[in-house]
């Protein structure tokens, strides 16, 4: 057992799998010599060498194309797209090529690959380096979408993503890189599509993802002092989506809140709310409430950005009002 940062957990997860399987490769911009612009991949070049850990040109389409072609022909590549905002310049590769290849070829082509990306705000980078794009990814049939909130899950879900036979988008939250957790030694492998109940509660269910998870937990502690007992679920992956855990919790608490960093319209919580409304409507005692970033680009100023992204205070106030 040792304390591990979220940042270091990324490299640990990748290294664990590269040691186990020589077909695992890693490529991206500044990932090798520099160890990643977020220092999430430090040490991989030194351990695995330049054949398997590759610095690329600034060519996101070429990076993802190389990953796809390698995956189609027997390798297990991990590609980094430095900031998830950059998916906009290579979305063709994700949506039209990687996600559809298996279906369009009726199973002939497999793309077992992982695309890692720095996602989310709270780091004052402005509108082109702060977006939460997990809802873009969730909207595309054929890719799995993972977004861990804790260092232990970074390791375990990274291993699961690399071993998965389908393409996985793995979102690492930039606002969580310095967070720490005690993580057990040895090999860690999780299962994709399992939400984690971080707090039991009887009055309402809060469903959150990535940076919103610790904020939801903190809000739940505040609300507990006011007599509102919240269950908190960390989704961990949007595809596969663990609706069973969500709906079981809602059935017992009768209220559902989502806390989402993505902009409001068509955020992942809209899908969760729709499923809950369809399938456990008669268990609900009140409206489903979504707490999201407004439908605006993210501002750079700390004052403005903190207003935009759901804060502990906003979560507390929204739930207090709705439960009142």
């Amino acid at each position, binding site marked *: 057992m040792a304390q591990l940062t979220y940042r270091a957990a990324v490299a640990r997860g990748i290294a664990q799998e590269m040691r186990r399987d020589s077909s695992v490769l890693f490529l991206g911009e500044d990932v090798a010599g520099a160890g990643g612009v977020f220092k999430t991949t430090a040490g991989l070049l030194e351990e695995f060498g330049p054949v398997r850990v590759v610095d690329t*040109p600034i*060519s996101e389409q*070429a990076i993802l194309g190389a990953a796809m*072609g390698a995956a189609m*022909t027997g390798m297990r590549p991990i590609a980094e797209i430095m900031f998830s905002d950059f998916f906009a310049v290579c979305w063709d*590769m994700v949506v039209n090529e990687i996600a559809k290849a298996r279906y*369009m070829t009726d199973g002939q082509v497999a793309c*077992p690959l992982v695309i890692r990306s720095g996602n989310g705000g709270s780091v004052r980078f402005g509108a082109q380096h702060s977006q939460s794009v997990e809802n873009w990814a969730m909207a595309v049939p*054929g890719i799995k979408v993972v977004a861990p909130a804790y260092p232990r899950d970074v390791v375990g879900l990274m291993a699961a993503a690399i071993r998965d036979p389908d393409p996985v988008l793995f979102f690492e939250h930039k606002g969580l890189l310095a967070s720490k957790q005690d993580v057990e030694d040895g090999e860690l492998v999780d299962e994709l599509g399992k939400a984690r109940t971080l707090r039991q509660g009887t009055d309402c269910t809060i469903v959150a993802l990535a940076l919103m998870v610790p904020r939801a937990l903190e809000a739940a502690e505040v609300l507990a002092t006011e007599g509102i007992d919240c269950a908190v679920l960390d989704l961990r992956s949007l595809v596969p989506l663990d609706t069973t855990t969500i709906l079981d919790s809602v059935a017992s608490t009768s209220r559902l809140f989502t806390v989402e960093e993505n902009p409001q319209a068509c955020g992942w919580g809209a899908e969760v709310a729709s499923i809950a409304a369809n399938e456990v409507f008669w268990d609900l005692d009140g409206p489903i409430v979504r707490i999201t970033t407004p439908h605006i680009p993210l501002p750079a100023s700390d004052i403005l950005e903190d207003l935009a992204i759901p804060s502990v205070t906003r979560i507390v106030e929204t739930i207090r009002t709705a439960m009142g």
Partner: protein
Amino acid sequence: MTHIAKSTSPRQVEYGQHDVIFPEAFDHGFDHAEISISTRLDLYRKQQEIRQLEKRLYDLFLQNLINGTSHLAIGMEAAGAAFGVALNDDDYSFATYRGHGHTIARGVPPEPIIAEMLGRSTGLLGGKGGSMHLTSVEHGMMGSYAIIGAHLCIANGAAWSAKLRNSGQVAVAFFGDGTTNIGAFHEAVNFAAVYDLPTVFVCENNLYMEYTSIGQVTPVTNPAADRAPAYGIPAALVDGNDADAVYLAAQEAIARARAGDGPSIIETKTYRHGGHSRADPGTYRSQEELDAWMAHDPIPMYHQRLLRIGVSERELTEIEMSVAAAIDVATEAAKAAPSPSPEALWTNVWADGGWQWRN
């Protein structure tokens, strides 16, 4: 690639002004190229397979038996045939939406190709892909890609994988002249050059990007070959209607890639007899230009070459008849095949065979 890097570009014209582009005269120098008779008969057969398949598909459209769009390669058979012969069985091909010919050229039988066009369960892709996505991994045909540029990047990945596995395989990406103006082309060529990947980039320049003359929207004369020096890789410019010329260029580029000497570009000058897709009658091309290129049809020219070097008319007729018979049999079998079952809608989204994204 100096001996083939000669310009077959037609009369020099100012870009943006040439609305008529003529083929250059067929090069009889290639009659005596060092290509065996049996290889040449293979090249002839593959050109016949592509032509007869495409003509059959056109007939099936006219009979309203094929839905959606399609992009035929009638007039452009030589390049597909040449690579079909030059590649090893385990090499990788990546084609565009105009990929029927590249598919049959890798040895994929015509029946599953035609069945796919007809949307049948016996189609190459079970009816899920259609005309623009023909794929047969077991034949090294790694897919037909309908968003131009992307598959050049993907071919690099297969080439990278081959290099890491020391398999000796090469990856060939076929694309049109229009692709040379999309970013992915430049990313892919640079990437292949930087890592010395065994990728062969084959631009089949049919002079029109969809409905617009490529010269009107491109500042260099040869849209693929002229870009190669910017990436420090060799390029060959060949008559894309001369199967032998393309075959020799292919051999050299493939050998270079296989030897670990990196990627190269081949630009073939060619012409499609029809429009861009079934919706396009191609009226933006002058009759004069069309007539000149119809007279430069790769198949009759190659037929004449084979006669000149001593192949009998009877032998060529036998090839033509056997290809026709195979296409006929395949067509009838495809027509008789059942439609996909409704259950097929739900299969093969994921590796577990299913489609579920939630529990």
